[in-house]
């Protein structure tokens, strides 16, 4: 798009780059917000269907406008800042969560060469941004100056830091196999496995890592069964307890944007991203973005399915799974994958 502004409209390179980037951000962020609203509705519907309920069905046809009604309701409410709270940080925390949930989308490839920032440290950028996500929650817990949010924040921070370690090792195996940190490069490296199938998950060596990554991404986004930070039987509403109105809505949006992002990462890193599932020419007629969306929606369904069916973990079980199962397993897999790669490239 920079080229379009630069050559067709005759702007200087700097300005056309600036304009193209702004437009790119809007083109990603606005539909994302719409998608988040619809995905909240979908989540509630799926959950309701699995519990043999109807779910939202009043506002609009099939209740489709429920999320917008909720958004409007929340928007009209009063923002209450507790008098004991640390005012500046209290208001800053949801903004951090929401921003961090959005910035990662800059490196997600939607189609071949359709990506906002095609940087060669793409995966590291994803890791860096996801490690920032913990601040929104810690700050909310601390600045609320209230017991339950603080407990929740400590739980959340420990949980996210623990599972980030496992995620990091999983990503290293992927990077070694693909030979690049660039997300587009990783997607392209998944093309034509065994000559007919697209996706690292079909590789028996990398498949266990896709399972580890799926479970870790549940823990990283604090979805059930790892939603201990919002365990309503113990912690009221967790770190969001003291929040109301738009600051609460920002958490809501940020959380679901993160869930969508994790679904996208699952699809992109292991299931071929924008590539069709089979490496067969007629399938490439369908644009890549449709394949990507289909995969994202599939993973979101899996997330909702897990939420509706799996009971919540105990905290010590969560820590055990992260540190004593996933960390050694993924570390071992790093050795295994690098060994196999050495064997394939160099020979015995």
């Amino acid at each position, binding site marked *: 798009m920079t080229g379009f502004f630069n050559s067709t409209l005759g702007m200087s390179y700097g300005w056309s780059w600036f304009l193209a980037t702004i437009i790119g951000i809007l083109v990603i962020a606005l539909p994302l917000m719409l998608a988040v609203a619809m995905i909240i509705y979908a989540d509630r519907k799926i959950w309701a269907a699995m519990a043999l309920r109807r779910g939202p069905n009043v506002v609009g046809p099939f209740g489709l406008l429920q999320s917008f009604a909720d958004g409007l309701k929340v928007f009209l409410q009063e923002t209450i800042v507790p008098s004991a709270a640390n005012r500046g940080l209290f208001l800053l925390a949801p903004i951090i969560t929401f921003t961090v949930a959005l910035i990662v989308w800059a490196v997600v490839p939607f189609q071949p060469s359709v990506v906002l920032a095609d940087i060669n440290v793409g995966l590291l950028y994803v*890791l*860096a941004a996801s*490690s920032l996500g*913990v601040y929104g929650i810690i700050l909310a817990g*601390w600045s609320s100056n209230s017991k339950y949010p603080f407990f929740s924040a400590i739980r959340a921070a420990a949980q996210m830091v623990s599972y980030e370690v496992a995620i990091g090792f999983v990503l290293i195996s992927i990077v070694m196999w693909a030979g690049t940190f660039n997300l587009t490069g990783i997607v392209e490296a998944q093309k034509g496995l065994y000559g007919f199938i697209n996706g690292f998950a079909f590789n028996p060596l990398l498949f266990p890592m896709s399972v580890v990554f799926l479970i870790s991404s549940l823990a990283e986004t604090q979805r059930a069964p790892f939603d201990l930070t919002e365990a309503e039987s113990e912690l009221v509403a967790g770190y969001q307890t003291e929040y109301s109105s738009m600051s609460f809505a920002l958490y809501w949006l940020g959380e679901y944007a993160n869930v969508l992002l994790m679904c996208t990462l699952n699809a992109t890193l292991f299931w071929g991203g924008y590539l069709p599932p089979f490496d067969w020419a007629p399938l490439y007629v369908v644009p890549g973005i449709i394949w990507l969306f289909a995969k994202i929606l599939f993973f979101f369904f899996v997330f909702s399915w897990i939420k509706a069916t799996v009971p919540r973990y105990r905290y010590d079980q969560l820590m055990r799974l992260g540190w004593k199962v996933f960390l050694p397993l993924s570390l071992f897999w790093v050795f295994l994958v690098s060994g196999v790669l050495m064997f394939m490239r160099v020979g015995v």
Partner: protein
Amino acid sequence: MIQALAFYLFALVVLLSGAMTILSRNPVHSVLWLILAFFNAAGLMVLVGAEFIAMLLVIVYVGAVAVLFLFVVMMLDIDFAELRAGFVRYAALGLLLAVALVAEILIGVGAWSAGGIDLARRAAPTDAGVPNIEAIGQLLYTRYLFIFEGAGLVLLVAMIGAIVLTHRERSGSRYQNIARQNARRPQDATRNVRPEIGQGVQL
């Protein structure tokens, strides 16, 4: 133009947040200012084309180290009056450190402006076309392999040291033995008895 603006923005924020780190009264705010300083330092790294270092700075310092800082500071019960009482006592030492640092900066600037530093004759000028990660990997795993391994060893020793120093055996805590729980069957755990009236059950 944009690079220059971004540089001054990042540099200004680094300096300001560094100053606020030591000026703010609340230690949690101090840590947050420190995080902002790290973050903007990462921005500066991106500007000089060291994107790998920038990402590592964010992942390691902002994502892990600063979170632990924040944890510790939030948990600590800090007595502000006591903190301030030490100010006069340590003022001389602090002043000495500040003077030493300023002297180092002056010496550095003096050596730079005296000339004689030939940038073209650096140890290993890498090709600008090679991505950061590859260039660093090439150097670390070939030329500086032993130093790199040595650094890893130091980290390992530090890790073991931290575990040894902080680990304490708790007596009397009862851990869940999952394998034993799973291996347990109803016939091991329950017993059907039909006691005579007035006899009771032997447990």
